[in-house]
């Protein structure tokens, strides 16, 4: 079994910070949490995105439409939907 604990962060120019902590277990996202000083309305919805991504394969083409569709009816300030995707695939290994 291969488990990778990963983290990454981005500072958006003229925008906000966004960070990610997540685990990939046998090519499946087993844990994922976004943090940062961005704004998202409604705020409570972020946990829904994290639930949607948990259990999904670590595949760009699979996760991209999930993230884009999720933010279709939400308002994001200081970061974009693409930043949530980019953070998953450009990571620094923590352990």
């Amino acid at each position, binding site marked *: 079994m291969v488990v990778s604990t990963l983290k990454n962060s981005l500072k958006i120019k003229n925008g906000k*910070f966004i960070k990610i902590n997540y685990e990939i277990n046998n090519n499946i996202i087993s844990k994922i949490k*976004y*943090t940062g000083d961005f704004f998202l309305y409604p705020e409570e919805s972020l946990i829904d995105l994290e639930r949607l991504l948990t259990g999904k394969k670590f595949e760009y083409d699979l996760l991209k439409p999930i993230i884009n569709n999720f933010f279709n009816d939400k308002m994001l300030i200081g970061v974009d939907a693409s930043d949530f995707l980019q953070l998953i695939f450009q990571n620094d290994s923590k352990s």
Partner: protein
Amino acid sequence: MTDSTSWRFIDLSVNTCYMNMAIDEALMILNSKNKSPNTLRLYRWNPSAISIGYFQGINEEVNIKSCTDSHVDIVRRITGGGAVYHDYNGEITYSLILNENNSNVPSNVIECYKYLCQPIINSLNNIGINACFQPINDIIVNNKKISGNAQTRRAGVVLQHGTILIDVNIEKMFSLLNVESEKIKDKLIKSVKKRVTSVQAELNKNIDFNIFSQNLRKTFSELFNVEFQNQTLTEEESNLAIQICEKYSSEGWLYQR
């Protein structure tokens, strides 16, 4: 000339961080049910406290041990944005609770920040500080931040709260917040000193909290063409705030991220 409308003004009061956040949320909920008027509220925090944005990781942002040792409380806000140190002697916080149907708040969020920050900018101008708005949500003086603001919208109500730095101690602030690397802490403090200012630093003298509060009341009234009624919380608002306060002081809420 249009008739001015009536809003409530709740003058500078002092509460714990949990109660301050609970009152803002209670007013928002009751305003959405037409049980609470549009309100400008001014407040301070005792004990001094760190508030973190809704999405921030507490362990990433806050030096919890240092806060405990310094008797500084920590609360997670209902709004996004960054961590703020609310020093009892160093800042005034305001909140605006406005119904989208009977106030002129812009629907565009960035425009709304700019619109609602303008009276604060005018208040600073009135005392000789040349402040201006900097998107997304800051007020600056010579490229230095003097006020940070955060906004949320629920059920047709805008809540914007923000801080006005009266006297800032960067070293104290950084002893309470986490920095990615201790090695860069000194460098970061120097850098932040170039990017953060306060009323005291700009005027080189102390100002009276109550006088500045009346200045804020006046500029909000003039710019938004509203008559303020000086009132306190209703019994219903106080009771709801006491209920909501339990959430803000719970570990489940604070440590959710």
